[in-house]
């Protein structure tokens, strides 16, 4: 019987911290890359089921901010309450913070070397390509309806025309889109 039910290590805030700190140190490539890694390492430890995890992730996407942060915090609240959330917060935030401080210090020292400058210019040049690819992939996945096309175009135009008003445009926009989504259904 013991072999059928392996003794799972129970979740504690400290363990949650290390799990998230490790994931956030070794996973590169943003939210879309990291969320499945969070899911599998929590499931592997028997702390959440697959269904529970995707349910948490669906809720996490409704929050602003990195989905890695909201997913980690919501699952940790479920497992360990307040201190779980604190542990998840530091686990997600601390490793990238230290990595950026390290890279930035190196750039302060070596950033003026011609080869480093060329490296940064080349790396920066791919940014439009990566954004375009993300637009392409997201647009392809979307289930498009005529109202949604109009909504995306209108909101994009507003954001481009009034760059200083991004905050009110987006907050108003999300509320309007929420109401409209309800209307089109009927």
């Amino acid at each position, binding site marked *: 019987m013991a072999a059928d039910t392996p003794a799972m290590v129970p979740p504690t805030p400290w363990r949650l911290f290390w799990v998230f700190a490790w994931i956030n140190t070794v996973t590169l490539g943003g939210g879309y890359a990291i969320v499945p890694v969070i899911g599998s390492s929590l499931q592997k430890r028997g702390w959440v089921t697959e269904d529970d995890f995707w349910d948490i992730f669906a809720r996490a996407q409704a929050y*602003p901010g*990195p989905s890695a942060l909201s997913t980690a915090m*919501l699952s940790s609240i479920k497992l360990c309450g307040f201190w779980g959330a604190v542990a998840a917060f530091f686990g997600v935030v601390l490793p990238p913070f230290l990595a950026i401080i390290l890279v930035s210090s190196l750039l302060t020292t070596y950033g003026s070397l011609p080869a480093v400058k060329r490296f*940064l*210019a080349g790396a920066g*040049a791919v940014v439009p390509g990566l954004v375009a690819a993300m637009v392409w992939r997201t647009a392809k996945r979307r289930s498009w309806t005529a109202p949604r096309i109009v909504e995306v175009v209108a909101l994009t135009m507003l954001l481009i025309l009034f760059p200083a008003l991004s905050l009110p445009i987006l907050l108003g926009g999300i509320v309007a889109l929420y109401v409209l989504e309800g209307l089109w259904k009927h």
Partner: protein
Amino acid sequence: MEALNVIWTFFKIGIIAFGGGWSVVGVIKNAVVPMWVDEAQFRALIAIAQSTPGPIALNAATMIGWNHGGFLMAIAATLSVVAFPVFAIAMTTLLANKVSIKKDPLNEALRTGSLAMMLMTLWVLRPVSLDPIMLTFAIGSFVIAAFTKINALWAILGAGAINAALGPLLRSLLGI
């Protein structure tokens, strides 16, 4: 006052940082260019933020804070950008079951909103020079990231390494 400006700017970015990393980059750019970094520095900063571990908005905040006022400013900017998301998680956890928002229309609204943010990001970060080498990097990285499963990290590091090692040679061969 400069510190307060950084904190307030990133706090506001945190409120509207919806939908995956890339959608928020345009909003960050509008807030920090040309006030704190120039166009080319921003593109390099985003490339670095994307190729180091951690969420892009968080990394960009840390970096701009660091460049702008050192370690303490880096901490302040980082905490500012996550302040509202953490507050939202805390509030909804405390108020669980007391407020109900229909999840499906909200998620659809957020998808539409974040796609619009991505398109705006694409517009503000469109290639600025017609330099053939830089345009080749942009097009090549689009093809890799859109049609292959290769991690975008390799496109960033690859373009950087090629330009660092071969940039002057390529330029002299092309006569530019």
